[in-house]
């Protein structure tokens, strides 16, 4: 009951008029950036970091929570009304959603996406309330060796599982870790990679890095390949659903939520895998399988719910362990540090009121999104018509402003340009962005845990596996890394039979490891369920496999648009 009363206190904090206003600003801003191409919630939160320092931390995080959920909502609107999804987690929604919209059912597609997101968000946040304290209870007993192991797992899993090329993922991770090294070593006080520049001795500001990689890199990249023919935007009225649509939607919503939350909660879960699994499941279970490929409402309802439930799930390790697994969570973690709040399992203990207010505001933001999004859908659709020169010039303008306002020095803008060029190059050559950001943010913390762990063991390397949890995590790490190899051997022995080949198939086909490569990181129970459902629809393999391969590009930037 302790949890419940804490949550009630959280609601009391979050429901004050000022905080409610920040929640509203957050959801509107979040939806807007989710709808607009080129910008996403992670970048928005990064841009607002310097601005938010004048706010109470609680208000700032309430706003960030709104942006986080709003970004997911907005993304689905774009993918339904345009035929090109902007973020990897909306790829599946875009398949059926855009077909529905083309068939004149845009209103229903938007409605099932919005209501499904609400349902998934509400259930997902409730699960967060239930599980986060349990994870915390378990986590406070863990020492530095276990934390080190878990961080290694998160970094490796995000790098090796998501994205289309492991090699390019590791390259990106290495660059991120290198950037994270810049500055004074926190133990010995020696300067690392500062090249004698005093401005670098405090390290690179996370705001500058995030804004450079996400905003400047993206703006330059889009500028180089700007679509000169305007996109077809399907006009839409107010979203609504008929009785039949409700009947066909509610089960996919619940099943999508069941897929989404556990995947989101795992390190490196991401949202692509559960949205895909949800799509395949709905296709198999549907009473109207012939509609799939022509705009089936189940194919929008399920994946969209999975997407939002995964977003909620991601917050479990973020709040309970201080472990972000997507870009927005990573930037929010940086925000904690900026406010002088130490993320990790002690967060609930030390900053209880803030955390519970944040969680309460997730419920509130979720509800506000439903209220705001159903009537405002036509307005959001108009936002998509914003002339592109203004959009991308605006992104550069606010990126500059945000990065400059951190320290008010032109030097940061030079860093912004250099790192922006790096972001451009990464997009050009298919280096995923997420491992870099996680490397920057987790790298220094990883080093701290490593040095603490070995300090405890007086330099003995075996100190790294002196805790049982650490051993378990290293076994999982080994499985993640060896899985493609094992799957290849398996397939060589038993060519194309049964479910395992299905699930492992795309992973072993070549350099691209598709979404289905994930089951090994899953806990055993979900893992087998996941394989089961993927295996359950062998007939889908043909058309979807090709589609998925091309989607791997989107998977590059993690589970969301940055």
């Amino acid at each position, binding site marked *: 009951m302790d949890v419940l009363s804490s949550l009630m206190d959280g609601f009391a904090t979050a429901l004050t008029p000022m905080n409610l206003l920040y929640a509203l600003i957050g959801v509107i801003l979040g939806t807007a950036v989710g709808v607009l191409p080129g910008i996403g919630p992670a970048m928005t939160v990064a841009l607002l970091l310097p601005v938010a320092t004048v706010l109470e931390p609680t208000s700032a995080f309430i706003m960030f929570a709104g942006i986080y959920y709003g970004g997911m909502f907005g993304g689905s609107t774009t993918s339904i009304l345009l035929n090109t999804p902007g973020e990897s987690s909306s790829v599946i929604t875009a398949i059926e959603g855009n077909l529905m919209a083309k068939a004149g059912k845009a209103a229903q597609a938007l409605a099932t996406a919005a209501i499904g997101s609400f349902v998934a968000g509400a259930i997902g946040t409730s699960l967060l309330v239930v599980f986060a304290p349990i994870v915390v209870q378990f986590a406070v007993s863990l020492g530095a060796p276990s934390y080190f192991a878990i961080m290694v797992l998160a970094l490796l899993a995000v790098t090796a599982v998501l994205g289309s090329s492991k090699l390019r993922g590791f*390259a990106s991770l290495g660059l991120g870790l290198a950037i994270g090294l810049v500055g004074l070593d926190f133990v010995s006080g020696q300067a690392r990679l500062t090249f004698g520049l005093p401005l670098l001795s405090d390290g690179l500001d996370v705001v500058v890095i995030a804004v450079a990689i996400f905003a400047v890199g993206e703006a330059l990249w889009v500028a180089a390949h*700007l679509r000169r023919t305007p996109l077809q935007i399907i006009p839409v009225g107010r979203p609504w659903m008929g009785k039949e649509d409700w009947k066909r939607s509610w089960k996919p919503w619940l099943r999508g939520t069941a897929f989404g939350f556990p995947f989101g909660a795992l390190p490196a879960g991401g949202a692509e895998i559960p949205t895909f699994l949800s799509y395949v499941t709905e296709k198999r279970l549907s009473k109207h399988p012939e509609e799939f490929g022509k705009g089936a409402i189940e194919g929008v309802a399920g994946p969209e719910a999975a997407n939002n439930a995964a977003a909620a799930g991601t917050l479990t390790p973020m709040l309970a362990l201080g472990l972000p697994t997507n870009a927005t969570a990573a930037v929010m973690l940086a925000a904690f540090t900026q406010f002088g709040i130490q993320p990790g399992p002690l967060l609930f203990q030390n900053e209880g009121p803030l955390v519970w207010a944040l969680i309460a505001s997730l419920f509130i933001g979720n509800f506000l999104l439903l209220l705001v999004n159903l009537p405002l859908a036509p307005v959001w659709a108009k936002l998509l018509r914003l002339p592109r020169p203004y959009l991308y010039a605006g992104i550069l303008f606010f990126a500059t402003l945000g990065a400059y306002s951190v320290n008010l020095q032109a030097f940061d803008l*030079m860093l912004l340009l250099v790192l922006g060029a790096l972001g451009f190059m990464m997009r050009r050559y298919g280096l995923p962005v997420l491992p870099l950001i996680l490397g920057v943010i987790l790298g220094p913390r990883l080093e701290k845990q490593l040095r603490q762990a070995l300090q405890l063991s007086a330099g003995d390397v075996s100190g790294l596996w002196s805790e049982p949890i650490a051993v378990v995590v290293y076994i999982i790490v080994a499985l993640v890394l060896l899985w493609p190899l094992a799957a290849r051997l398996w397939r060589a022995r038993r060519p194309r039979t049964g479910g395992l080949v299905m699930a492992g198939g795309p992973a072993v086909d070549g350099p691209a490891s598709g979404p289905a490569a994930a089951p090994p990181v899953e806990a055993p129970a979900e893992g087998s369920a996941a394989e089961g459902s993927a295996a359950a629809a062998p007939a889908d393999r043909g058309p979807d496999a090709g589609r998925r391969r091309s989607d791997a590009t989107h998977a590059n930037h993690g589970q969301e648009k940055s």
Partner: protein
Amino acid sequence: MTSSASRLKGRSELGVAALLGAVGALVLIDAARLVVPYSQSDPVGPKALPMIVGGLLLICAVLLAVNVLRGGRGEAEAGEDVDLTHPSDWKTVLPLAGAFIANILLIDWAGWVISGTVLFWGSVWALGSRHYVRDGLISLALALLTFYGFYLGLGIALPAGLLEGIL
């Protein structure tokens, strides 16, 4: 000769491998000059992680070079406004970067209102808008609005520069 030249053609991704290698080498060289005093309280020392990271980058550089020479290719990122069917349009990117650099050079001397106006106007122009007057007014309005918004709303004083005393 010709075969190696043809092998290099269209392999601009080797530049990425070179960059990774350079960064890796830099990290290793920088780490090499760190002093590691023997210390009971810090057996790992400041050198360990840079060594690992530098090593990782070098390995990635080599593997990427091999991958590219064997015909591997990173997939360029798609997006709503991205049309990958035409090659990189440097006539847009370079002026855009120019507007950005102009802002860096101007911001401390001329102040944010002027440099921000130049930045936005230049970017819009680079991206293909040709409504010079309208864009100029929008740019100026944005720069002024953010200047006063930051000053009055957030207490952050952006540089006024040349317009000091007027604003």
